[in-house]
């Protein structure tokens, strides 16, 4: 009897104030969800769909199943280009990960201590980050120019003429040099994030450690470093995502083909050339293959992020 009453009352209950309040959050989510679906998820799935088609131009119509994927891994020309791009992207990422992020940590430590002109240096180190990548790429191309660039003129001036190299023209130099340019530009990012992490550490901990007789070095490795580990994780994953998507700095300094001889070709430039611009001088794009490269880039990125999520979750649970 009472049960029957309950079920009768259930329907109006959905509309009562208490329950409505519980559901309002859905309404707040809707606009963002809509934007996300239309502008992010939609194109993403369309790109996945496109990778199963082939044809010339911007609307490939011929369905070929997984043939693009098979070609990418088995046809020598595609495989060579693709693995070259993957290896280059890994080198590009490794240079950022080691040099940019360890220098960022060093600078953050220096900037966290109290000294005159601290704010000036904090601003200075962040300034290149605010510039356009194309501007930075163009400036560094000029600075590194073998005919009138400042770098080679200085090297020649101090008697190191043998080191005045065509920096962007050698196959073994171009990629590291461009990566270092990019490090120069983006170093402000990890610095600021590490700085925020370091200033968040309670003074008392450090004071206690130094009273116990810990040296600066020990304080850094035993107190500060473990406490900023979550920041390190975030920076690592951001560097990973940024670098596996990197395009603009290569385009500005080595062109869409990653000259010389594809030695600076990254996944994104390979994708751009294949799927959007086509290669000079014919310029006929292959959208299906472009989408295939984009999809694989997406899978690489997703697996990286999943690994990071797994470890950061596990760390959080342990605590």
């Amino acid at each position, binding site marked *: 009897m009472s049960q029957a009453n309950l079920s009768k009352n259930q329907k109006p209950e959905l509309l009562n104030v208490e329950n409505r309040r519980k559901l309002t959050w859905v309404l707040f989510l809707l606009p963002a969800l809509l934007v996300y679906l239309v502008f992010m998820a939609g194109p993403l799935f369309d790109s996945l769909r496109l990778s199963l088609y082939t044809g010339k131009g911007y609307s490939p119509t011929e369905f070929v199943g997984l043939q693009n994927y098979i*070609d990418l891994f088995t046809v020598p020309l595609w495989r060579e280009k693709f693995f070259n791009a993957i290896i280059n992207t890994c080198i590009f990422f490794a240079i950022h990960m080691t040099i940019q992020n360890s220098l960022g940590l060093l600078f953050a430590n220096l900037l966290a201590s109290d000294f005159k002109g601290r704010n000036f240096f904090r601003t200075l180190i962040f300034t290149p980050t605010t510039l356009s990548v194309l501007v930075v790429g163009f400036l560094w191309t000029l600075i590194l120019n073998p005919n009138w660039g400042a770098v080679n003129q200085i090297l020649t001036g101090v008697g190191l003429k043998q080191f005045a190299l*065509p920096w962007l023209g050698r196959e073994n130099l171009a990629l590291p040099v461009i990566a270092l340019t990019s490090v120069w530009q983006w170093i402000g990012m990890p610095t600021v994030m590490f700085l925020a992490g370091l200033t968040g550490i309670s003074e008392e901990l450090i004071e206690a450690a130094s009273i116990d007789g810990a040296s600066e070095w020990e304080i850094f490795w035993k107190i500060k470093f473990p406490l900023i580990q979550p920041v390190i994780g975030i920076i690592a994953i951001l560097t990973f995502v940024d670098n596996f998507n990197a395009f603009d700095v290569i385009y500005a300094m080595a062109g869409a083909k990653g000259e010389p001889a594809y030695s600076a070709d990254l996944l994104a430039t390979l994708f751009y050339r294949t799927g959007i611009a086509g290669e000079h001088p014919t*310029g006929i794009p292959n959208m299906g293959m472009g989408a295939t490269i984009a999809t694989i880039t997406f899978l690489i990125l997703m697996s990286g992020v999943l690994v990071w999520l797994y470890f950061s979750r596990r760390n959080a649970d342990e605590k």
Partner: protein
Amino acid sequence: MQKKLFAVLSILILASLVLTACGTAAPKDVTLTLGSWRTDDVAAWEAITTAFHAKYPNITVKFDPTNPPDYNATLRSQLETNTGPDLFFVRSFGVGRELFDSGYIASLKDLPGINDTFSAGARAPWATDSGEPYAVPIAAVSHGIFYNKDLFAANGIEVPTTWEDLMAASQKLLDAGVTPFANGTKDAWDINEVVMMQLLPSAVGGYDGRMAYLNGERCFNDPEIVSAFQQIADLRPYVPAGFEATSYADAEQLFAQGKAAMFFDGSWSIGQIKKDATAFQWGVFYPPALKGKDTYVSFHVDAAIGANAASKNLDAAKTFLQWLETPEFAALIGNNLPGFFPMTNEIPSLTDPIANDFMNFNKQAKGVDIRFVWEKLMDAPTDKVNAYTSLNNNVISVLKGEETPEEAANAFNADVAAWYGPASKCK
């Protein structure tokens, strides 16, 4: 507030509807857009379209160029979404042909006068195999070596008449502490298009020689091709110290600042060099052939204009295309764009002396031909390397000393033979 806004908007919409209605009511006045990859030539094209408008007051042509590297892709997406320009520049051979085969370019087989104004050779890059034209050829470009007359005089050098003389002159310049050639390889395309493909016609014997390769009568690694690669190797001591990282724009600056004595380039740079190289006298000569060979000039078909098959004003567009056949247009393009040469049978006299020098190359040479790889050799399937890319990579390797001329020619031959039938059966 909202009501007011609504009222204003509805008035605006109504007004625009009425205005467009007026536009269609008087069909005589049409505006055509003209797509192009020549962003540098906006002023010159304004002069040309103004002259056309003076003749046909009811048709206005608006020149609307796209950044050159993006042109092919942009045009294609416009045509596919039916937002393409009424008229547009069409690339020669494969790239343009592909658009015609896809139905985006109107056929011009009924355009009056097209067969009389242009030779079959001039029409061929924009016609089907059976000779059906789909674009009106408007401009060809030539090639040559710009040289610093002051530096030549100071070192007692005359314009050379054989390749061996040119190399001797280069050595003389190098000994005097002058960089002989400004060219580098950072941008890759220029060493291919303005150096190698400028030397190839003389090396292989012009049009007939090129046809022998296309028909499979000669192999792409025969002694003639090796000799052209050898010429690239000859240049190695005479390019700038950091040539690997010297871009096309850097090279132009090295020449214009008097730091390098010579610059392999195309006729399209006349205007730019005139603007930049003001401190010395300069001129142009064609790279002479190896001793015992005849000189053939690389006179390359560059641009034609076609009509959008889906244009609402196809008749007006065809009126414009027909006007492109007139001597009036030929004179306008030759004189407004020094370095671009009309492709009509009758060539008007040009006012620019350097442009005339380029034209004289054609008269003095044994013959002229287009760039070596343009016809047929760029249509490789997507999983093979086309002849342009292969030639480019091998030329750079030879200049850097990573490959001998023979190795480069063998690699080039292998790349082409991998997909181009006649090359795989060559003798």
